[in-house]
């Protein structure tokens, strides 16, 4: 067969013969492929950058938040369930009997008919029993529902769930700081207790923050602790890591506008990070009884202000001192003018309530002061305009070593140093492994554990397992497992997803390109028939003609590949130049706690995708050329020569 170098010489003349057609083909097909190439280059840049940043923060750890929601019991679906109604009837009878006995014992007035009417109604037409939805909140119904929930509740068998994963271990010390049911634990915005906030002290909802507190395993929070902050546990302050924007607000810094330049924002990040030790804030815990007393005291205060000067005003028998808005203090009695009988009646009533289980307890309150010891990742920046391309926030969400957007995280090791009197055990539990939300009104209990996997593959398998086991969108009653603290575990999925996109894009673009190339090569071959005939006359074999056209196709495809590569690289470089500053900022915000010199790039050539795509271009060319070439070699040279002369 003809030598390759000679085939190149002859094939090259064909490219020159159809210069315009060649140029158009190269441009169109090149642009199509360049889109994929640019995407691949940018994606590789992103992957590499993520890998670089992953060495910071939590990204190298594979932690899953494994949770399970208990099976819910939906009371409202059972209001006509006769079995449930029987249970409610039994509960009602028990409650009435208990209250009647206790009332008799403590000599307290009790009327079952008015205080505890039966929640069961009877349908006039069918005669069937049912519970009116208005009665669904009655004591008997909720008691019956609670019994059902508790009966069906099975503790989450975490060990069983993790049995297949030898590298998994449960991280200790995780608990949400939550007041027990009926109690409150609230953030004191501007230092003012929420219940005591005056009309003129209302906070603009856009400005308000709603943080909650949680203790999270020390090894997880460690990277977020700012080592330059000297935390003094003896002051009784609770150490917390807070999100950047909260810190910014608490430092009295005005939020930067969305179009602030990169340097300004970077300076702001540094300022917040450097001054984080200055941030303090307060929370107020009140037990139900404390809230009740506070309400009474407020009511008295309002009554006094409104009617105090009127003649008919009668001061209450128990008078409370005015309450400070900022102290989260106990309500103190100013004056108690009750008679002995009144006091004795109140005591009897308390004993009665204790007997039937409705006593709300003693008034307890704590003011918790926090001290920031670190910054965590924030809600993505930007001015809330979702239509604007915000590379910085995009990168932030990609990278993320997060600890929850609105959560302030307490490092357990530092918390332990704080004297116990400042960390009441009703709120701060250092022994919990899990993060458990007790049953609430919805009848759903959520148990959540942090599980670390030494083998990321096992973590992914566990995630998959939970996906497969998920019943319904919330996986109620089922187990959920999602990455905690970083997106590293999602990166592999993103890569797999990306590979799929590249594959389909190649298939589609390749298909379009094959059609274009096929028709262009077909035409070139058709127009080159006479020339092929001449070549045959001067000694070319069929295979030589085939080789020349195959070479022509490769030359054409190679030019498309080269053009696509140049264009793709150019586009990727433009993206790199346009966004790398913003992205680096976003990345550094994502690791707000750590001052990292790394930069985030959108340009990476070190990927097998590039040679693969370039190869695919040649393959597409050759595949599309097969038919015309075979046809051309089978032609009768005489006919072709005659056709043209």
């Amino acid at each position, binding site marked *: 067969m003809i*030598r390759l170098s000679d085939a190149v*010489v002859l094939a090259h*003349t064909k490219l*020159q013969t159809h210069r315009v057609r060649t140029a158009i083909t190269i441009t169109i097909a090149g642009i199509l492929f360049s889109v994929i190439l640019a995407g691949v280059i940018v994606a590789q840049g992103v992957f590499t950058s993520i890998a670089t940043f992953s060495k910071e923060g939590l990204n190298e750890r594979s932690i899953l938040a494994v949770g399970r929601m208990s099976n819910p019991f939906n009371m409202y679906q059972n209001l006509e369930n006769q079995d449930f109604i029987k249970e409610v009837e039994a509960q009602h009878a028990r409650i009435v009997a208990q209250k009647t006995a206790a009332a008799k014992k403590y000599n307290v007035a009790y009327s079952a008919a008015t205080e505890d009417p039966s929640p069961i109604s009877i349908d006039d037409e069918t005669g069937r029993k049912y519970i009116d939805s208005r009665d669904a909140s009655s004591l008997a119904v909720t008691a019956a529902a609670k019994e059902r929930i508790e009966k069906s509740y099975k503790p989450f068998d975490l060990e069983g769930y993790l049995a297949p994963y030898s590298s998994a271990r449960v991280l200790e010390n995780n608990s949400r700081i939550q007041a027990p049911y009926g109690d409150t634990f609230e953030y004191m915005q501007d230092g003012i207790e929420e219940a005591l906030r005056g009309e003129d002290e209302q906070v603009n909802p856009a400005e308000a923050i709603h943080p909650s507190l949680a203790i999270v395993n020390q090894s997880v929070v460690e990277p977020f602790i700012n080592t330059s902050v000297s935390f003094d546990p003896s002051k009784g302050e609770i150490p917390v890591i807070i999100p950047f924007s909260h810190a910014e607000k608490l430092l009295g810094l005005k939020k930067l506008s969305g179009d602030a330049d990169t340097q300004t924002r970077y300076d702001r990040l540094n300022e917040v990070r450097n001054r984080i030790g200055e941030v303090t804030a307060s929370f107020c815990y009140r037990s139900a009884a404390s809230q009740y007393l506070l309400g009474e005291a407020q009511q008295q205060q309002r009554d006094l202000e409104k009617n105090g000067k009127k003649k008919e005003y009668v001061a209450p028998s128990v008078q409370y001192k005015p309450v400070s808005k900022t102290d989260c203090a106990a309500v103190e009695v100013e004056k108690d003018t009750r008679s002995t009988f009144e006091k004795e009646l109140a005591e009897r009533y308390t004993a009665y309530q204790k007997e039937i289980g409705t006593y709300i307890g003693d008034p307890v309150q704590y003011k918790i002061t926090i001290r920031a010891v670190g910054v965590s990742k924030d809600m993505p920046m930007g001015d809330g305009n979702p239509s604007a391309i915000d590379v910085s926030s995009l990168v932030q969400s990609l990278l993320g070593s997060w600890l929850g957007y609105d959560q302030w995280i307490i490092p357990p090791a530092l918390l332990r140093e704080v004297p116990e009197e400042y960390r009441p055990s009703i709120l701060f539990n250092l022994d919990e492994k899990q993060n458990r939300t007790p049953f609430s009104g919805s009848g759903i209990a959520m148990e959540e554990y942090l599980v670390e996997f030494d083998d990321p593959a096992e973590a992914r398998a566990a995630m998959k397992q939970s996906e497969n086991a998920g019943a319904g969108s919330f996986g109620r009653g089922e187990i959920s497992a999602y990455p905690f603290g970083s997106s590293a575990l999602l990166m592999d999925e993103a890569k797999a997803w990306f590979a799929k996109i590249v594959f389909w894009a190649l298939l589609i673009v390749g298909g379009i390109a094959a059609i274009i190339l096929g028709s262009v090569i077909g035409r070139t071959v058709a127009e080159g028939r006479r020339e092929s005939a001449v070549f*045959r*006359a001067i*000694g*070319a*074999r069929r295979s*030589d003609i085939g080789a020349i056209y195959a070479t022509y196709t490769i030359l054409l495809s190679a030019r498309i590949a080269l053009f696509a590569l140049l264009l793709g690289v150019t586009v990727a470089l433009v993206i790199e130049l346009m966004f790398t500053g913003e992205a680096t900022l976003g990345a550094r915000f994502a690791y707000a706690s750590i001052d990292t010199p790394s930069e985030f790039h959108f340009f990476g050539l070190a990927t097998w995708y590039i040679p693969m795509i370039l190869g695919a271009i040649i393959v597409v060319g050759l595949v599309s050329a097969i038919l015309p070439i075979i046809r051309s070699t089978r032609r009768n040279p005489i006919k072709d020569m005659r056709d043209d002369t």
Partner: protein
Amino acid sequence: MGGNITDVQQRAIEELIDQQFDGDSVVAARRFREYLIERLKQGEKADDTQARRPEAKREQGSVLLSVRNLGKTYKRGRQRIAVLKDINLDIHEGEIVAITGASGSGKSTLLQLMGGLDKPTDGEVLYGGKNLARLSDAKLSEFRRQTIGFVFQFFYLQPFLRLERNLEVPGMFARTKRKSRIGHSKELSERVGLGDRFQHYPRELSGGQMQRAAIARALFNKPKIILADEPTGNLDSTNGQTIIELFESIRDELGTTIVIVTHDPAIARRADREIRIKDGALI
């Protein structure tokens, strides 16, 4: 030369030539005339020659290519068109043969069948005793490459290759090494008087120059036979003359057999032999 013979002798020679040659074999007649004059100069009588044909002087070579009972039929729709019918002829080594006939008479088809570009419907073309139709594509290509040199009416040079490369194309298919090709194409371009156009593109050449280049290309693999299809059909008479003289000198120097399809009587006259075709048959 004419001064040595009398007018009577001159007239006798012309009469003899008129009798012996029917006007289609100009070269032979010219050679015969020169031969007679030479003999007269040496004192011999013109009639001693016994009216020998010039072939007698030029030893007729052995048969190179034989065409036996050749027929070619094309299908056009349902119609079968017989382009060639029962052709028999031999091409001898070293001769210049002109194939003439009107347009559509089948002369080009005959040339192409002789060159192994197509397969006959009937009969055979034999080269060295081998039937071309029986050869594989590789063998047939090799035959065209090594034995035949094609020359076309429209030259068919590669427009984007310099003359140097254009001449090399047959060498490319023969897998000749580039080094030896360069020297050979230079030599050939000088042989056809285009040495100074060696680095030019075809568009920079005149029609006559292009045809000379095409002839040089046909000579590249040192073929035994040149098959030329209307080589002067696209040229003026002066250039046509040059081409035919080039063919003659090639035959004389290299001994190449040359078969020319033409309808130019001037060319036909200069050939050693003319084969006429009418409606696909020899006449």
